[in-house]
């Protein structure tokens, strides 16, 4: 192997010149070595580095809490997906965006159905003929992109034999609105709005990762109080979404009282975010360098009382789920994913922890307020809908305790006047959003602007997990499996 990879901490910036350049064969040997040791390729994307198109690879090492960075020459290469399946989307993405083709990719097809970055024609969205099931008794059931509920667009093909689903082909890209392309050359006036709307239900998660990236590139300090305030908002976002998900899971097994109660509990937590920053989704709260809204002692008292009340009602409602045999019977052994598959697909977040993957950014790569207070990891190992539901409950409990333990008045701490970004530098920030790991990576050019900005939403890894969960199930299990993941279409499509 050539030079050693560059090691950096979560939320750190380093000059591009310090990152070693590998040939693809060298990268292959390095990636296989790290994968064997439990390392995870968290990002693999092409970016202009010193004006030349180069592949950037980030590998996260859970046991040491480090992120390793290497650059790779953008040449044609033998696909690594057969050995490291979790790379399948990164390789397809680089082919779609930049025409860097992985030879022998076993699952080669478009990702978001857009035009290549250097121009050309877009593939036709929704075409799912890349993988089909054939046979006299085989049939396909198509769903979407316009679904029966109030759901984002995506196309699903259930490839079945009789009642049994052999494979679920998921075709996305309908939400593609060109965010990464628009971020290049930034930060612009709209950059923060783009961050807040990468996945609207993860506004705080994505905006936190973005602020950490900008702060690292600009050498901008953030007060400890502001870091704690961000963490309070992040955990509030988790509480709201986990409460909502438990309600939706109850709805999909026909247990309507809990569906109604938890649907309202979700709103109680969203309304707490609205008290702090005027928006139920945390819009307008985050800003590089700090937080836009403070919390004084009088507000805090009211907030704490409302939080306690919301928690009491949520506990009261969700407790019904864990004691109802008909609910548990439906949750257990549905959509099971073994640990080996979870690890191979690189799954993240509650869905991975429900398969026994002991990984949580807040403990393994803590940044911000989590450095002083790393969280425990809520994990189960049955890998089924039950585990995905129960992990959410365990995490909600942790979030509440975290908020209550750090809650104290804080002050608004706006952006500093000048925020020039370091030129020819790379920064990466990981945040444990409520769906799982969010990774933002920025590469700056000589002008101190983003030459490339890469967003990896947790859904990027987990959609394939949902497809796997459906194998051997019936179509009627899909809504329940789908809700147990509750993945983001817009966070994937970007």
């Amino acid at each position: 192997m050539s030079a050693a990879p560059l090691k950096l901490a979560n939320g750190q910036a380093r000059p591009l010149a310090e990152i070693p350049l590998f040939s693809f064969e060298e990268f292959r040997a390095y990636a296989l070595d790290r994968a064997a040791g439990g390392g995870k390729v968290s990002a693999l994307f092409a970016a202009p580095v010193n004006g030349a198109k180069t592949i950037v690879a980030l590998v996260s090492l859970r046991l040491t809490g480090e992120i390793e960075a290497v650059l790779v020459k953008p040449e044609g290469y033998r696909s690594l997906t057969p050995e490291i399946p979790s790379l399948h989307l990164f390789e397809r993405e680089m082919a779609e965006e930049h025409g860097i083709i992985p030879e022998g990719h076993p699952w080669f097809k478009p990702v978001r159905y857009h035009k290549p970055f250097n121009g050309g024609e877009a593939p036709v969205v929704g075409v799912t003929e890349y993988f089909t099931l054939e046979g006299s008794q085989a049939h396909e059931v198509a769903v979407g992109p316009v679904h029966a509920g109030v759901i984002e667009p995506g196309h699903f093909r259930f490839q079945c034999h009789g009642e049994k689903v052999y494979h679920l082909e998921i075709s996305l890209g309908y939400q593609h609105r060109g965010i990464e392309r628009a971020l290049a050359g930034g930060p612009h006036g709209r950059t923060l709005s783009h961050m807040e709307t990468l996945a609207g239900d993860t506004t705080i998660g994505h905006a936190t990762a973005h602020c950490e990236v900008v702060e690292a590139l600009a050498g901008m300090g953030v007060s400890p109080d502001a870091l704690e305030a961000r963490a309070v908002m992040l955990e509030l976002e988790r509480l709201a979404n986990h409460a909502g998900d438990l309600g939706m899971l109850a709805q999909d097994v026909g247990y309507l009282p809990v569906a109604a109660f938890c649907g309202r509990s979700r709103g109680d937590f969203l309304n707490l975010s609205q008290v702090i920053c005027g928006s139920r989704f945390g819009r307008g709260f985050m800003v590089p360098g700090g937080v836009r809204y403070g919390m004084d002692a009088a507000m805090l008292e009211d907030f704490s009382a409302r939080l306690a009340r919301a928690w009491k009602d949520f506990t009261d409602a969700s407790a019904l789920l864990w004691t109802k045999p008909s609910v548990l019977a439906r949750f257990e052994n549905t959509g099971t994913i073994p640990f080996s598959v979870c690890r191979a697909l690189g799954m993240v977040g509650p869905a991975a922890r429900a398969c026994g993957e002991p990984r949580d950014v807040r403990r393994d790569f803590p940044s911000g307020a989590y450095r002083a207070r790393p969280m425990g990891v809520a994990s189960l190992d049955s890998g089924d809908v039950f585990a995905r539901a129960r992990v959410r409950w365990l995490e909600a409990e942790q979030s509440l305790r975290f908020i209550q333990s750090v809650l104290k008045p804080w002050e608004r701490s706006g952006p500093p006047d000048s925020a020039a970004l370091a030129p020819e530098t790379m920064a990466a920030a990981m945040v444990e959003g409520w769906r799982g790991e969010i990774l933002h990576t920025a590469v700056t050019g000589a002008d101190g602007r983003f030459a490339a900005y890469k967003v990896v939403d947790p859904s990027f890894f987990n959609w394939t997990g949902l497809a796997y969960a459906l194998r051997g199930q019936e179509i009627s299990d899909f809504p329940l499996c789908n809700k147990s993941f509750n993945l983001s279409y817009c966070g994937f499509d970007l």
Partner: protein
Amino acid sequence: MLRELMTRIRQGHQTADAFPDGPPPAMPERFRGAPEIDPARCKPAACARCVEACPTQAARMEGGELKLDLGRCLFCPACAEACGEGALTFTQDIRLAASKREELVAGAGPRKLATALPEELRALFGRSLKLRQVSAGGCNGCEAEITAMNNVVFDASRFGVQVVASPRHADGLLVTGPVTENMRRALMKTWEATPAPKIVIAAGACAISGGPYRGHPEQHDGVEKFLPVDLYIPGCPPHPLTILDGLLRMIGRIKG
């Protein structure tokens, strides 16, 4: 069953049913609803800080007067913060929807809110409005608030307003998102599958103007380019009460 009943009693009555006949529930102080422009404090000749701060060019100077286009506004705090003179503030008023695109432009003085559909449509939809929601790009924020509009607090179904599973069952489309190129065809097919007479509602900054993605070649700056819009509901995302208020004005349940 007893446990469910006991829980039901403890959870209590949660529906905000003072609305719409009484005032809507009080919004927190920091909520950013309808903007208020105070011309006495605005000095457009010397200052355009709000215009410069706006990420979507919603704030603009027109004939020496400040205007805020709610169809583009993300209701972020940038303009009000940049002002510093208190000339532009956001009130806690959730009423934002309008029937015409130009009526979304706020200036000094009151703005015209959405009015009821023509009588023949109101007779059809006034007490039963079934909508097919089409998510045509965007961030899922508007979809989340439309879902919340149907929860026990806002309970849109008590007014006969429901989201239905098929365009064949629908009286109109509730469109969110800027209409991405990849959703254009699906949106049009859903429209064609909806029986006439039918209406279109654009909910959220994206569906009205492209929102934060305005100008991106991957999308089409909103639904108006393809379909005639009967109701515009601003916001990023609009609050569930803002959506409900707009729908109830459109079907004539709220007047004035």
